[in-house]
Structures are given as C-alpha cells and as structure tokens.
C-alpha cells in the first residue's frame, strides 16, 4: 500500500525549466505548489564550481550530468516492421535528471519561432496549395499565434537576460539583427556576446555570398544583469565549458540562476528530490486527476494528492507518464486515430567543416556564441521550386574547443597513427564547422508508445520510439547543407567537408535534445492531447508543459518557445484556479 502525503493545491512533475516558471507564477497567485524531481538537488556552488565542472571526460564523454539510462531509457526503431531495441547508453539526445533539468546543461541558444510556424498548415495550403503537403505528413496549426505569444517570449527573454541584436521592433527592421524574425515589442535585454575569430570568419563570408548574418540570441549574459525577479547574473567569461556542463559563473540562464533564489524563499513552495513519479492518478470517472504516485529514494511508493497536476518532465517523459497512466487515447498508427504519442518529431542537423589557416583559438567560446543566417528558415523563401516543407538556420557556433569531442579533421586525414597525430596538430586551432539546424515535420509513422518487452527499474514498460527521417526532411537538409557549403567556400583559403545528414535516423551520434510532440496542442481533441492553453482535453485539472506539445518541430532550438508557452499557459492556469473547468469547450 502506498503511503499518502498531505494534499497540496498543485503538484509539478519534474523541477526543470518549465516547472520552475510554473512554480514561480502559481505561488505568486497564492496557491501551494510542490515540485517532485527524480534527480538530485544541485546548484552553482558547489556543483558547477570551475575547479571540477570543467571536466570533459566526466560530464561530456561519460555523460554524468545527464539522465542515467540504467534507470530509465527508451527503445527505438526506424519503422514498425522492426523490433525496437533499448538505447543502452545515451546518444542522439541526452535528457536531464536533477533540479534545473536540462536548463543546467543547455547551450542557451534561445530563439523565437517565426509567425508562420504556428499556422504552418493553413499558411502552406494557402501559398502552395493542399497538394504540396505529403499525404503522410500530419502538419497541424498550433492553436496559438505568434502575436499571442509575443509578450510571453519577451518575459522569458527578460527572465534569462538574453544577449542579442533585435532585427524587427514593432515592424521596423533594425540593422544588424535578424531581418526575418517576427516583430518584437522591444530589443533584447543585453547586447550580443563578443565575437570569436571563427564567427567573424563566418560573418564576412556570409555577407560576401549575399546573406544577412546576425549574432545568435544567447542565454549567456554578455554583461552583468539583474532580471525582473531581482536575481543577479554575472558576465560570461567565454570559458568554453558551457553546454553539457553547468555554469560556474552565474552567466548561463537556468532555473538556478534566474528563478530559484526567489522561489525557494516562498512559504507556499516546496520540492522533493529523488522522487520519481510513475503515475498520474485519476478518480473513478477518469476525468479528474487526484494527484500522482511516486517512488522515493528508498523505493517506497508514495501517493501525493493534489487539486491540479502539471507535467513538466521533458518531452518524452511527459508522454510516457500519460501512457502509463492511461490518460487520453493512445495513438494508433494503422488507423491514424488516437492522440497520445502521436506526432513525435525531432530536429535534422548537418554540418560543413571548414579548414583554413588563421588561428581561431576555438576553446574561447560560449554555448550560444554564434553568427547565423535565417534566409532559409520556415517559409522565408519560396519553397515552390524545391518541393519540400520547412527549413532551418545556418550558423557557426563557437561553443568551445574541448579536445576529445570538439575537433575537426579533414576527410582524408588518417583515422589513427602518425597521420592522425599530424592532422590533430595542424587543424585543432584553425578548423571550425558551420551547422545547419532544420525543422522536422510530423508523420503518421513517427510516434511514441509503450514497449512490449523491456522495462525500467520501477518495473514499468519503457517508452518505444518509432522514428525516421523522411524524404521531405532529407531533401530540405541537403538544400540547407549546400547553402552552408557556399558560405564555407567563401572563407579565404578554406577547404571544406560537406557532411550531409543521411538516413536512416540513427540513435547513436549526438544530434540534439530537441525531441518534440507526443502530447501536442491544438484546437481539435481528435488530433491533440491538450488545448491551446496546454490543458488536457480529457482531464481538465491536468496540464502538459514543454516541447511535447509542439505539433511538429520548427527550424530553431525549442526552449524560447517552450518558455513562452509556459508563461502563456501559466496565465491560463491563473484563470482556471479562480474558476476550475475546461478553458476551451468543443
């Protein structure tokens, strides 16, 4: 029998980025909030202190800062005719475990999606006709617009102290910024980061080719910054141990550096670590959540009653919990019905390595230090002649020069031996790499469900991922890579290695932790799990945060949009708390 804890108003599953925002907002609204986090407590001091965090082997190679697959992983296959097998160690993506979630070890590349991204189906049909969309592509409008989200993007950017250059303020183009971005009400809170040698090379080359490069928006503070909650951040030192590490300098925006100092002082907020939630409990009608059940560090099953439950456990974990809890109709790929697990999507990336003679000192960098072009993102260009949907940005990121994982060698360099050694010697300080970061649409054949064979440490079935890159994405990514190569070739004295992404999708090499979908938002309960406020259609006192609600993925990193949606949803929750019930009726 599970032990029962005293009830709370709101229980949050997970204590990462989205949970921290919701906790801050709802405690301000006067309710009791409890966050349950499966991982450990961690903070800038002592956990990210520079005397030990700058350890590539421990954190980036052995991946000790991430989720441990030994406890929980997923199984993977490219398509339904294969048997999915467990991801036995982390590869393609690396979910977080511990307070702060992936906010601790993200890069801080903090983008807004384009206005058209939120209405992609109606926009595409209108501009190119219905026939332009492949039959098996589950393209969907979001149910929320860029204009509605703009104030919430702004809140997240000012919370984090984003360093960047606005490109469009109230419809007025601003020189030096991204001319393609949606209109913003005001500029970024901080000026862009310093440029590194390699981003200067990219900038010059991109201009030469005729593009409009701009500094990427960065959650690495270019100056000391005090955010609207009164929390102070320090200036980024370009230490180069940023993504895949915690920041020892209070410079990278994370829950710890932006919210927790205020939140943890509140009497109506509590959190418990080492508590792994395994079920959302519902009453006999199945229409009301009564709380959650979790397993504590000693293996005890504990029931936590609550008036309202918010899933903040990261993309695939939210979906896993919904499936385990039997909330919402699971997706069936054969009949294309059901919603939970439907529309899983990801990111498609590729790169062009550049070899030239100028010394670049790649080890001086920051997680979101980069120059980019946005000419080929979303629908910023005419897709008519190309025959694919979607796009992405092209950027030169200079995140660091950690020597085990961050070095580039020419294609013809020997793999080992004296030739390898010579190539390392000649290229480490001078090579750089241009990245493409492409959208992935949702398809009938890309989904999440429960695995029939393998189980986690709690005895629950693992989540099963069925996913592959489709011809639309491979074509789009190839197009982007060719554009990136054009920029690479314009760098003086450069020889390049064009690394196009090839199918099938492999779970082995790291790509991005930008998993999306599975509990998507929308206007129609037949094709979405949550309404436009991220409230469950089936269980109105249950809410789902994070990228699991993206109907498909756009050509940007997700967290700017995740943050904006979280604030948008928090406003709706405040209305709900005054007058509980579904906020959208069908």
């Amino acid at each position, binding site marked *: 029998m599970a032990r029962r804890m005293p009830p709370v108003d709101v229980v949050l599953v997970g204590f990462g980025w989205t949970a921290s925002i919701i906790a801050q907002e709802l405690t301000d609204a006067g309710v009791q909030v409890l966050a349950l986090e499966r991982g450990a407590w961690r903070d800038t001091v002592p956990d990210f202190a*520079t005397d*030990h965090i*700058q*350890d*590539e*082997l*421990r954190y980036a*190679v052995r*991946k*000790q800062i991430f989720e*441990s*697959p*030994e406890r929980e*992983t997923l199984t*993977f*296959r*490219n398509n339904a005719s*294969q*048997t*999915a*097998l*467990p*991801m*036995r*160690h982390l590869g393609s993506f690396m979910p977080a475990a511990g307070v702060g979630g992936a906010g601790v070890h993200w890069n801080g590349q903090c983008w807004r999606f384009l206005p058209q991204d939120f209405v992609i189906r109606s926009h595409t049909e209108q501009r190119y006709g219905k026939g332009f969309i492949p039959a098996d592509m589950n393209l969907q409008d979001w149910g929320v617009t860029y204009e509605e989200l703009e104030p919430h993007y702004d809140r997240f950017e000012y919370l984090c102290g984003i360093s960047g250059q606005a490109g469009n303020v109230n419809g007025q183009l601003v020189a030096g910024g991204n001319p393609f971005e949606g209109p913003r009400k005001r500029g970024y809170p901080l000026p862009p980061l*310093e440029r590194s*040698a390699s981003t200067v090379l990219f900038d010059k080359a991109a201009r030469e080719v005729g593009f409009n490069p701009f500094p990427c928006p960065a959650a690495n503070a270019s100056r000391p910054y005090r955010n609207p909650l009164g929390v102070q951040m320090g*200036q980024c*030192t*370009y*230490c*180069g*141990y940023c993504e895949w590490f915690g920041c*020892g300098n209070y410079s990278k925006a994370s829950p710890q550096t932006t919210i927790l100092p205020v939140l943890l002082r509140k009497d109506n907020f509590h959190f418990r670590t080492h508590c792994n939630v395994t079920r959302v409990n519902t009453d006999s009608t199945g229409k009301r959540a009564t709380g959650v059940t979790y397993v504590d560090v000693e293996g005890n099953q504990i029931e936590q009653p609550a008036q309202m439950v918010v899933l903040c456990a990261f993309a695939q974990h939210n979906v896993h919990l919904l499936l385990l809890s039997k909330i919402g109709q699971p997706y069936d790929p054969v009949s294309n019905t059901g919603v939970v697990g439907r529309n899983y999507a990801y990111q498609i990336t590729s790169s062009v390595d550049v070899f030239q003679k*100028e*010394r670049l*000192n790649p*080890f*001086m960098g920051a997680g979101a230090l980069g120059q980019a072009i946005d000419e080929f993102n979303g629908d910023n260009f005419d897709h008519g002649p190309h025959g694919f949907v979607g796009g992405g940005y092209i950027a030169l990121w200079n995140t660091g*020069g950690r*020597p*085990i994982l961050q070095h580039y060698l020419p294609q013809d360099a020997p*793999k*080992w*031996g*004296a030739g*390898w*050694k*010579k190539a*390392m*010697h000649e290229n*480490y*300080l001078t090579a750089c790499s241009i990245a493409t970061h492409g959208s992935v649409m949702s398809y009938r054949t890309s989904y999440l469900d429960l695995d029939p*064979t*393998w*189980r986690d440490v709690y005895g629950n079935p693992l989540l099963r991922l069925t996913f592959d890159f489709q011809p639309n994405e491979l074509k789009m990514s190839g197009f982007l890579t060719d554009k990136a190569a054009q920029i690479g070739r314009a760098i003086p004295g450069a020889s390049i290695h064009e690394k196009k992404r090839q199918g099938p*999708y*492999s*779970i*082995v090499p790291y790509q991005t932790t930008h998993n999306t979908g599975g509990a998507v938002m929308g206007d129609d309960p037949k094709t979405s799990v949550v309404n436009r406020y991220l409230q469950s259609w089936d269980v109105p006192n249950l809410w789902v945060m994070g990228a699991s609600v993206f109907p498909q993925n756009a050509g940007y990193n997700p967290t700017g949009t995740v943050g904006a949606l979280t604030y948008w949803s928090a406003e709706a929750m405040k209305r709900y708390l005054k007058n509980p019930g579904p906020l959208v009726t069908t």
Partner: protein
Amino acid sequence: MNHDPARRDFLRLVGVTVPAGMVLCACGGSGTDAHGGTANAFFAPGEMDFIQAATARLIPTDALGPGGDKAGIPTFLDLQLAGPYGRAERWYMQGPWPTGIDGQGYQLRFTPAQLYRQAIAGIDKHCRGKYQQPFVGLTGEQQDEVLRALEGGKVDLGDVPSKTFFNLLWQNTQEGFLADPAYGGNRDFAGWKLVGFPGPRYNYVREIGEYGKPYQQPYVSLIGRAPGTALAHAGEAS
C-alpha cells in the same frame, strides 16, 4: 599523503581505489611506469603488454611528441576499466539481447571491462596463430596490420565483433590522450600540447577579441600545473 589535495582530487575524479604507487605514477608524470612493477587496477600483466604496444601504434611517438604509451594512456585505460565506466554502471543492461541494426546502437551484453578482457585474449590467440607470437612480440608493421584487421572487423574474437572492440579501444585511447591529466593519461599535457589546448582555463574575456593571437598562459589541469611544463604548442618555438 591524505592531506595532499592533488591526490584527493585525483581519487575523487577517477572514482576507484588503486595502489598508492599507481596514483603517484599517474599524477607525477614520471617515475615508474604502471607496467613496470606496480600492480595494475584492472589489466593482467599480459593484457597490459597488449595495451602498451597497441596504444604506442595508435598514437606513435614522433617529432611532434610522445605517443600513447608514453602519454600514460595505458594507466588511463586501466583506471577507467577498473571503475564505474568499466562496469557499465550507467548503461541499461537488461536483456533480452537480440542483435539490431547499426542505428540502434550497442546491443552486446559485455561491459567495457568484459569486452577488453575477451578481445585481448582473442587478439593474442589470433596473433599466435598467424605470427607465432603474441601481439607484443610482433614488429610495428605487423601490429598495424593486426590493428587494421580489427578495424575492418576481420579478426574472429568469439562473441565480440573485432570492429566494435577496435572502435572502443580507439575512442578510449583518444580520451586518454586528450582528457584532463588528472585521469592518468595526457601525461605532462602530451595531448593538449600537440593540439594547443591550454586546459580548463576559466576566463577569456580579454583574449577572445584578440583574433589570431596565440594564447600565452601555461597549460593547466584540474589538479594544477605539472612542474616543468613547457608552455609552447608542440612543434612551435617557445
């Protein structure tokens, strides 16, 4: 000894209990080689012979600097395999164990430590069959020939695909060359000097805008600056 912060940090980093002589050897960057008399944490003596020889071929000593064996990589591998990594402590290791496609990743029931043990025995057997000598007794060219055969998946190592072992060995060898010297490899910053990486420096606010300029500060490790360390990028005049 217990008050020596470098030693304490080293033990914390490596996460394994090892004989004191070993630790000294790993940190000091000189003195007795792990192979020469002190007990190994994981490898049996014959296994260590293979590791010494193989890492010396994978990263040979030449005009650019020390090779893998001299850079402490055998010590690094020995400690890694004796520790949590060797035991695959963070890997999902529950069966069943069907074979999959490449894109599904590692699906063998061996931990890294078990994989090395099984593979090294198989390689020596292969060498005795083909050259009437264990790996360590072969000429450099013959050793390269064996390494290439492993890399190509052409050596029968029982349940271990030879390509899987080669890839792991080469990955771990690079780690030993380029990880912080606190882990026993990258001795005297051999790997970092080869490429010009200064180590875990913390503040580049001033230098990041000095385009094209060499970074001048000495090499540094998480456990400090080894005495007598040259400042120059290998192959450059200081």
